[in-house]
């Protein structure tokens, strides 16, 4: 898919126009795909409530089958988690669970999870973000269509918990630009081919910047990253401890739209 084939997207593109363009591209891409490759999802978690939330979102994924590897970072599965996992297994989703001590780093856990899975693609998801039901399928569609080593989403939607506000940021520049080759995508939306991931050393072994680790290694190896629409994913900025400052106010700058609460729409799987 080339930019020329699309209608002009700009800063003034409305949400409705954006969704309609996304749907058009989705239809074109899906026409070309006969059989989906195998996908493994890796998730590291240390908050039981967030794990419940992401498991519920995974159950709604339209991608027919995938493999799921959960890394429990110092927590145990509770009854609710086991029920949700049971429901996923009924959907013919293979679920692997591995426990890690608290002294393990996030990078080590994610890399280990990626290694233990077998899908042709590995998708990293963050347990505190919000994913629409087409998330996994859209990523695979984009990877196949563009013959990319990795794909991910633009940062178009951010939920700011302290303000209970979702901002929409859409434009043709920076992290908001969609449908283009880039060295950056949202960390919670990375999907990478197994061979490229392995060569990049997966997510490294650091405590932070695990996304940067895999994306830059891939780029250094000559790999190509396609960035698709952010719609279908909401990045979440949660409350932090009082001493820890994240400057979430920057997401208000040049925002096209602000919606109180979590943006409610079927593209995010949040419509009531």
């Amino acid at each position, binding site marked *: 898919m080339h930019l020329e084939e699309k209608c002009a997207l700009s800063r003034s593109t409305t949400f409705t126009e954006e969704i309609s363009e996304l749907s058009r591209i989705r239809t074109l891409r899906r026409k070309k795909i006969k059989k989906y490759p195998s996908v493994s999802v890796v998730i590291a978690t240390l908050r039981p409530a967030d794990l419940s939330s992401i498991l519920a979102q995974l159950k709604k994924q339209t991608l027919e089958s995938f493999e799921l590897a959960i890394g429990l970072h110092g927590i145990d599965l509770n009854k609710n988690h086991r029920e949700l996992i049971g429901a996923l297994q009924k959907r013919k989703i293979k679920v692997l669970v591995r426990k890690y001590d608290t002294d393990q780093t996030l990078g080590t856990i994610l890399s280990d999870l990626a290694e233990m899975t077998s899908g042709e693609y590995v998708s990293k998801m963050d347990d505190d973000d919000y994913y629409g039901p087409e998330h996994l399928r859209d990523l695979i569609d984009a990877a196949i269509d563009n013959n990319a080593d990795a794909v991910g989403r633009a940062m178009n939607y951010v939920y700011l918990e*302290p303000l209970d506000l979702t901002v929409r940021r859409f434009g043709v520049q920076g992290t908001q630009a969609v449908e283009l080759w880039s060295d950056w995508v949202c960390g919670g939306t990375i999907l990478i081919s197994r061979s490229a991931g392995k060569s990049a050393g997966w997510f490294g072994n650091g405590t932070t910047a695990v996304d940067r680790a895999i994306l830059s290694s891939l780029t250094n190896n000559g790999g190509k990253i396609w960035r698709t629409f952010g719609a279908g994913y909401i990045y979440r900025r949660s409350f932090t401890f009082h001493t820890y*400052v*994240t*400057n979430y*106010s920057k997401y208000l700058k040049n925002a096209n739209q602000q919606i109180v609460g979590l943006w409610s729409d079927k593209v995010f799987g949040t419509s009531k």
Partner: protein
Amino acid sequence: MERQSIWDKQMSQPTYRFERPAGLEIVRKPKLTAAVIVACRGGQEKLDLLMASLAAQSYPKELISVYVIDDGSESAIELPRIKPSKSKIIRYKNAPSKWGKTAATNDVVAKIKADVYWFVDADMIFDKDHLAHHMKWHHDGDDYAVLGWKKFVQEWNYTPQTAFEMIVAHKFNQLHSESWGKTLWEERVQRTQDLLHPALDGYRAFVGATFSMKSQLWKKLGGYRRDLITGEDTELGWRLFMEGVRIVPDREAYSWHLGYSTVELNKEEIDRHNLPALAQYIPEMKKVRAQSIDSWKIPTYEVVIDVRSCSLSKLLEIRSNLLSLPGTQANFILLANWRCLKERYSPVGDPNADLREIYSWLKGQRNFSFKEISNGNLSIEEIITFFSDEPIPFHIYVDGNFDQIFDGKALTDYLLSSENGCVGLATKQDRRAFALFHPALARARTLGGSTYKEVANTWGVLWLTFEDFNAMSTGSKYRIKRTVNFFKREGKKINSASQLLIFIKKIVKILFRKILK
């Protein structure tokens, strides 16, 4: 407490700000009943004309009932010959605290059952479709307060019979060839686009000669403030406006006011009586309020501050920035884990020194209250629950450790000019502050569910970075607008020679600073 919703019954879409349909037509087959309420003390001759004009109304007779309240007239008021079929006199037995328009109206109306109450003065006469024009709004929604359009006439020499016949024959306008409008009132209505964009001025346009509202709205508001003897309509207008009610002056609902009003004739005496009485309840009467250092019943601002990580000096800075304009006052609600102050401590090395200092300085002040919260994060929804239902125009929240200079006055000014229900600021250090407009809060609270979301749906919510807001307050792009606002704001403070001197000094100082720059 269960909040009564006056909106959700008829409308699928709640009202947005003060928007209303344009070109609404008289309802062909109306259903709502109307109780006409006239409180009078003497004035039989004018009442006879009023009753004749009521009998001539085009609104279906079976839906109209008239209640004439005789508030202790020297010679008892009688129903005239020409009157609507369902007319009744209610003799209001006077006693201390049981006399006057507010007490009589409140007590009598409490027992009247009707969909709509139409309150009229006894010295008015109405065009044939006057009530029908009021009622078209009430058929459209539950949140309207409708004002008729009136002109004053100096003399009249027609009988009730003539008035009745002329009105029925659509010759209402021919009853008088000379009349006067209230210029100030008409200008205000004009300026606010018939109160579609009333800013804080909406209430001033609310006058008592002919207004109507749904009975449930009157009951919710509790009617007039009983302790007001005159000017009660202005105060009611303030509460209606603060409630988020749409006040509609209907230019097609014609009426004549027979003679000049008491206010016009005895302005000085009336002002002396009314101004302090009304200023108790109407914070917008800043000029009156500025004449006294004492506090008034309803403040201009209600400020909630999370003081868990706040110093006394920061708190006082927030207060002094907010109250820079004379005649403004604020109630402060300080949130913290106050209970921790009860633990044993030593003045040396006290871990709660800041909190204790705040409490020790302010615990005796009536406009400060202390609310207990636990250690967690405060969501916006949770913060909003601390705001009261009192008709205080602006509610403000600010993190006590707000890392920038917080000017609550500038924020509420911006809130008002942006016409949003809520405007918030976020700093690079993750600190928050926001201002909420009471009409938006009041309406949102009647809708149930998330108040914050309903404020967004019915009035609009806007968050800005502190830098963007600051640029609007100090940047070159908005210089002219700011200068105009500066003169408007500072000009209001001049009420004496010394204030004028302060004003001149300020201007000189600013000019000097700009030149040196």
